[in-house]
């Protein structure tokens, strides 16, 4: 470029191609997930996780106690409704422990999908002002939920110990070592499903309402409040095709010694999770570049 002022623009020179650190173009591939860039934002992810935790703690009277009260109340309701009144089988496991285990796992998945599904619409103000890797938001949500999961798992273990020492028919099995894998899968499903919905809600606002309902219905197609064995042969296929089934059953098998899962089922479920997550990432990548124009 010359030193002279560029009056009446068109005389425009394109500098030589050298040392550019980034290029902004209108097109971005579906597979251009920029994961390396995401890693650079790890500090922001931890700060978001911490903000979510601290702000809940500061805003409410009971603070983190909510992490405990919510699953306990649900579990008590389930125990009365399904255990006492409907008298559903729990495969010899104390009903309270059975429902609590299902609840703890399920609420991790449900919270992930429900909260990540509003990533774009819910954070439009922030995302419209400043750029950071958009996946920071759903990932930090998934990690925040992991904190409440840890608290709830602690509660579960306390009750497990109480029941165990009172001679209830519960025991750990080797599957307990797979719990981190189960969590990873629930996180993957929640995140994948959530970002699919978040990408679609930039176009279809009413989808967000559908998600909460869908997740609730999905719970009844997953062995959360009943074991697979309690379902008549005729309907069992619903549960068998549900990729979340092996995760929940496996968790129960690990902690309570009751449940049915094979490595094969788990492997398939893991594969499906990767597919869901990939579709999510593709849609997310596709939408993130222009969603600010439509939200």
């Amino acid at each position, binding site marked *: *470029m010359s030193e002279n*002022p*560029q*009056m*009446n*623009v068109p005389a*425009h*020179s*394109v*500098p*030589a191609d*050298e*040392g*550019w*650190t*980034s*290029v*902004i*173009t*209108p097109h*971005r591939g579906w597979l251009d997930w920029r994961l390396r860039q995401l890693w650079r*934002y790890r*500090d*922001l992810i931890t*700060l*978001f996780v911490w*903000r979510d935790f*601290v*702000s809940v703690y*500061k*805003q409410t009277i009971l603070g983190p106690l909510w992490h405990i009260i919510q699953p306990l109340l649900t579990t008590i309701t389930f125990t009365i409704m399904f255990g006492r009144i409907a008298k559903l089988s729990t495969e010899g496991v104390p009903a309270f422990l059975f429902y609590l285990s299902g609840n703890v796992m399920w609420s991790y998945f449900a919270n992930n999908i429900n909260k990540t599904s509003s990533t774009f619409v819910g954070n439009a103000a*922030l*995302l*419209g*002002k*400043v*750029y*950071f890797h958009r996946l920071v938001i759903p990932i930090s949500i998934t990690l925040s939920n992991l904190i409440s999961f840890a608290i709830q798992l602690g509660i579960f273990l306390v009750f497990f110990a109480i029941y165990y020492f009172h001679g209830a028919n519960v025991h750990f099995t080797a599957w307990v070592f797979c719990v981190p894998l189960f969590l990873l899968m629930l996180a993957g499903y929640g995140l994948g499903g959530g970002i699919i919905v978040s990408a679609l809600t930039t*176009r*279809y*606002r*009413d*989808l967000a309402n*559908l998600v909460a309902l869908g997740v609730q219905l999905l719970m009844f197609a997953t062995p959360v409040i009943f074991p697979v064995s309690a379902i008549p042969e005729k309907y069992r296929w619903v549960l068998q095709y549900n990729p979340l089934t092996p995760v929940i059953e496996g968790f129960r098998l690990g902690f309570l010694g009751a449940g049915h899962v094979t490595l094969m089922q788990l492997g398939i479920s893991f594969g499906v999770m990767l597919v869901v997550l990939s579709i999510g990432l593709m849609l997310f990548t596709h939408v993130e*570049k*222009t969603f*600010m*124009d*439509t939200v």
Partner: protein
Amino acid sequence: MSDTVISVQKVSKAYRLGQIGGGTLKEDFSRWWAKLLRKPDPFLKIGEEHNARKIGEQFWALDEVSFNVKQGEVLGVIGRNGAGKSTLLKILSQVTMPTSGQIKIKGRIASLLEVGTGFHPELTGRENVFLNGAILGMTKPEIRKKFDEIVAFSEIEEFIDTPVKRYSSGMYVRLAFAVAAHLEPEILICDEVLAVGDVEFQKKCLGKMQDVSRGGRTILFVSHNMAAVTKLCDRCALMKSGRLQLIGPTNEIMQQYLKFGAQGDGIRVWDKFDNDEIRIHTLKILGADGAITGHVDIRRPFTVEIEYAILRPIPGFRLALRFIVSDGTIAFTASDSADSAYETKPSSSGHYVARCVVPGELLNEGFYSLNLSADIPFKKELFVEEGVLGFSVEQTGGVNARFSEKWPGVVCPRLKWQTRSVGDKSLQLQEI
């Protein structure tokens, strides 16, 4: 080696007008269902052509904009509302993508499109510094290193451990700007950040920005504050209706900008309001014949008419107009507080029209720009906008018309001259 750090190449951005997409899943589904049954689109208005996505209705917010910015340069981007400045900055800061064209960047880029982005009201000042810093792209160690400096700059040391929801708006903005000012990107993009805080703090921000640019970093600065642009920027880009009109040295562009305001039609209408006390609706320049015009006759009086609404009573309310010459000199300030009726001027809620008559044979020929402000003197600023409207004073046979040259000077009043012979005494000029 080229020292160009930003190269914008034929960047365009189109927005779709009107309703975007189908809106809801239900609508899209019904539309699909109707199509399947070969029925007409249920959401199409009668008589409307079938153009489900209305592809034709596009609005080009940016139209083939190209320019380069060199390392260490402070480039001002000016232009009226809707000229495409903000869109350009949004694309540069990657908030949205261009429709076509490309931008190449050398170095880390940080944008300050609005201060305080991502502040959480429940968190303390200290916590928000870390959160906001990270949102703006700093790492934790970087923020920790700068923390004391940030707090000192913001002047709110005592309240740093108080939740920001208890802050006054001034404190909030100061802290937010302090964080932003201590970012150390190679390229900084600022949009209207100086339009916040009190005058003292604004000066401080301006100073900080100057330091930043002296440090060899590149700044892109969008503002309506012409004084700030003139002070800060070496070069300016002038945008109009999505196109880059001119780019060059600030003083030259500034003159063009004010001139180009004069090509306006003598009326300015506001449709966005961010004030719940007063809303300025229109400002018009009326020629001697009462018609709206952007070109006034040098010999005859003209009127500046301001239509506004007061939303809740504002006792002591004052309007002021400042007439600026194209080199930035203030010709004069006119305020309704100078009028004898000021004390009894109505200030209760309602709609008002204020008129200020500027006599003929006062302003010299040339281009002028108006600044408009509304305030309660010494108490509160209600509305300030620079470069509200430009107009030209046209030579039609004024005082200086006898010879075809433009007389220097801001004003060009017709003064009385009398010349008489005083014999052989030395010549004397006397005003009667």
